[in-house]
């Protein structure tokens, strides 16, 4: 699976916001949507994209972008906004998480309402990522977010995932992605945020293995939080 990933990178700029991306390679069918436009256009090699372009790949398609020293390859059945391809600080991630909380207000525990959409495609979950082949745009977006994490843009990946869960709440029930992004929060040392995320995941329909994983992680996070408070 690792071999499927085209590793880029990577001298990431502190903030790629506002920069232009050049399309250096296109395989198969890749569409783009600029800003708030209603139109999807075919992306071709040599195109220059601004920072608010949504890219979407179909099966067996991919696109490679370059911006300054940054290279990013978007695999098949994936979607990403160029504005997300940027290095974020942990503080920026915390702002993004706070924003997500505000947008979700009034807060209700409605996670159980989300449906598990794993049936949409094949779960190619592995140690290094999650990938579900699907034409569902929400899943495509999640695939794009996973790829952000895989190239080291973990903060941006989590922030993007939260935005996806707001706009496509039906994909919140796909536990593989939830666990993937939850683990990033743990790795970033955001134990409180990770704890809340895992508590939310715990209410989903989980496999036995997932349930054990979630419980173990929650226990570990509880200890971490208590020791941090001391």
């Amino acid at each position, binding site marked *: 699976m690792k071999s499927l990933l085209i590793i880029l990178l990577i001298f990431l700029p502190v903030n790629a916001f506002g920069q232009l991306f050049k399309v250096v390679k296109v395989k198969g069918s890749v569409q783009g949507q600029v800003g708030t436009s*209603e139109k999807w256009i075919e992306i071709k090699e040599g195109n220059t994209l601004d920072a608010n372009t949504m890219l979407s790949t179909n099966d067996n398609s991919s696109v490679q972008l370059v911006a300054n020293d940054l290279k990013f390859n978007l695999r098949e059945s994936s979607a990403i906004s160029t504005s997300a391809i940027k290095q974020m600080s942990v503080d920026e991630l915390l*702002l993004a998480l706070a924003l997500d909380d505000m947008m979700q207000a009034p807060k209700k*525990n409605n996670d159980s309402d989300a449906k598990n959409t794993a049936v949409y495609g094949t779960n190619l979950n592995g140690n290094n990522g999650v990938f579900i082949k699907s034409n569902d745009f929400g899943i495509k977006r999640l695939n794009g977010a996973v790829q952000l994490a895989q190239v080291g843009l973990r903060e941006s990946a989590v922030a993007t995932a939260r935005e996806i869960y707001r706009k496509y709440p039906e994909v919140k029930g796909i536990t593989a992605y939830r666990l993937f992004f939850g683990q990033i929060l743990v790795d970033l040392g955001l134990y409180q945020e990770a704890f809340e995320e895992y508590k939310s995941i715990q209410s989903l329909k989980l496999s036995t293995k997932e349930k054990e994983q979630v419980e173990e992680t929650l226990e570990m996070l509880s200890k971490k939080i208590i020791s941090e408070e001391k």
Partner: protein
Amino acid sequence: MRFKLLLILLVSFYLSKNGIAQNSFGFSGLMNSTNNISSLYGNYEASQINFSQLKDWGFSFIYGPEFSSSVNLNIYSIAVEKRFSNHILSLRYTPGYQKEFNFNTASAIILSDSTRQSLSSKFSYKELFGLGYYFRFSDELQAGFNLRYFSQEFSREIISPVIADTIYLVRENQSEKLGLWKGELGFNYSFSQYFSAGISSINLFSFSEDPFDQELEKFKLKTEKGVMLTFNFSPSRTFGLSGIIESNKSFQIGVNGRITFSNSSVGIGCSVFHDKTQSPFIAGVIPSVNFSTSFLSVSLSGIKYFSDRKDYFSYGDFENNGITNVINNPYSFDKALLTIAFALNTIQEKKVEFADVKIIEDIYPALTENYLNKPFAVATVVNVSDERVNVKPFSRINGLSEELIYSPIISINPGDTATISYFTVIPENYAITKSEISTADFYILTSNEEFDDQIQKPVLVNGVNSWDGDVINLKYFIKKSFDFSISYSKRILSNNKTLFDTLENRLSDFYKTKLIYNSFAEAMVYVSDPRASSEYVQYPEETLKLKGGDCDDLSVCLSSLLESVGVATALVDYQLGELRHVNLLVNTKLSPSEAGLITSNENKYLIRKNNLGNDEIWIPLEATSLKRFEDSWQAGAEKFNKDALENYGLSRGSVQIIDVY
């Protein structure tokens, strides 16, 4: 100052030489002079100060039997007092303050049948009435002055020769009636809450007519001058010690105990007195019990002399000594006395007072219900009474409303200070557009009568279009002319009835928004606010009539039009440095999975949860765009995405979403 006062008292005391009888004699003993108990008004004997706790009117009445060989019932006195600020006037009528003596003199006539018939004399002393005036210089120092009028009537039988054809003797009754005015002056000083002392005159001045018969001079009431010192030591509310010492070395001393209940108290006291002209050394005792409330005092007291009191005595002794005091002299009898005093307070007693009142917010008449929940002023109020009180605050903003607006009642413990919030109500028909400095009257009330305290403060009452700059308060402008908005919006929708007849119901709100916006945009012109500094906002009806406005006016108007037909809106407040901007979010009520029905671009909407926790699609609208609906939506979305989301404006606080409802 205190040493000088003491020196004067001592000098007066020792310089007094004449043996005058005790003047400091009250029927209640010293009960009423301690613990500030007003058991008797018009007590001129024990104190000339008599500055009681009286607040307005006071009445007292003394009645009881005197135990001589027979029991005689008397109304001793009826007194009334009236307070005027720091002045008290007193009037006392004393029908029972009298003493009458009947003697058979040494002179006698021998009748023809050799029987002997003595000539009789009758001496009558009456104190008829008194006037008092008291003045309070401060809480510590008070002064008092009283004037009393006495009547002395002397009647003697004499033998007069009648010269006719023969000379014979006739027995005639010769009488004289003399008036006597006596004036006294006294001062009292409170050194602390536990101890006070005073000095009063005895016979400061007296005016008496001279008898025609010089022989009667010796029977007149004695009016030798003297000084009377008083003290009161009350280390607690339950115990008091009082005393009076006269310059003739007569004295009276009393102890009092008192138990205080919530609204009343019961006291018991006992005084003993030494009178230079009476024996034994302690001439008598005056026990008393008292029940007091704030308006009523009932005392039962008695006077018991320790020497035998006889109905008959020597004319010679009387001729030599006379009397100095009508109600207390060697010939007085034991008495029992019922004293009733009551206060009639027609003046509201101040229980609470303002320490300060602060206007915390100028008045913006547009913000109507805002003032029902948010105080425009806060007051610091002190409970100056000795009881827990419920304070009713109310206020009136002059020029805004004639109504008194009551704020929530608050309880304050005795001596405590509390903060009271003042709310107000904006009259629905308030329409003054010009801002002006007005005044607000603040009141606090503890009973249902007069208010306890009142204070007036200036307050800025803005015009009806003024806005305080807080976007959350724009909703008051949105709601103001709702009827007008309803008819405006419904007219637009009814013109597109065909569309709604065929439209999927779930798209209803989206298309209502689209139609109303397009109609609105077509009619409106963006005009920057010339009163930008004064935050002037037009009501929707005004904007539609004027056909234009700035971002506040247009957002308010568009929101009102949409809300009036059931489309939920929210205001978005952008605070970007010095620049502020307002636009709208509109709830399509579509679920996220239905987004494709209105757009293929996820950047053009946001998801918000409703009260039930369900996700709904909201779209940003730029009301100032005034182009096609799609352009307004696009402009609103771009601004929201950039400022609220990408720059984390929502989490940084520079962007706020305020739901209209």
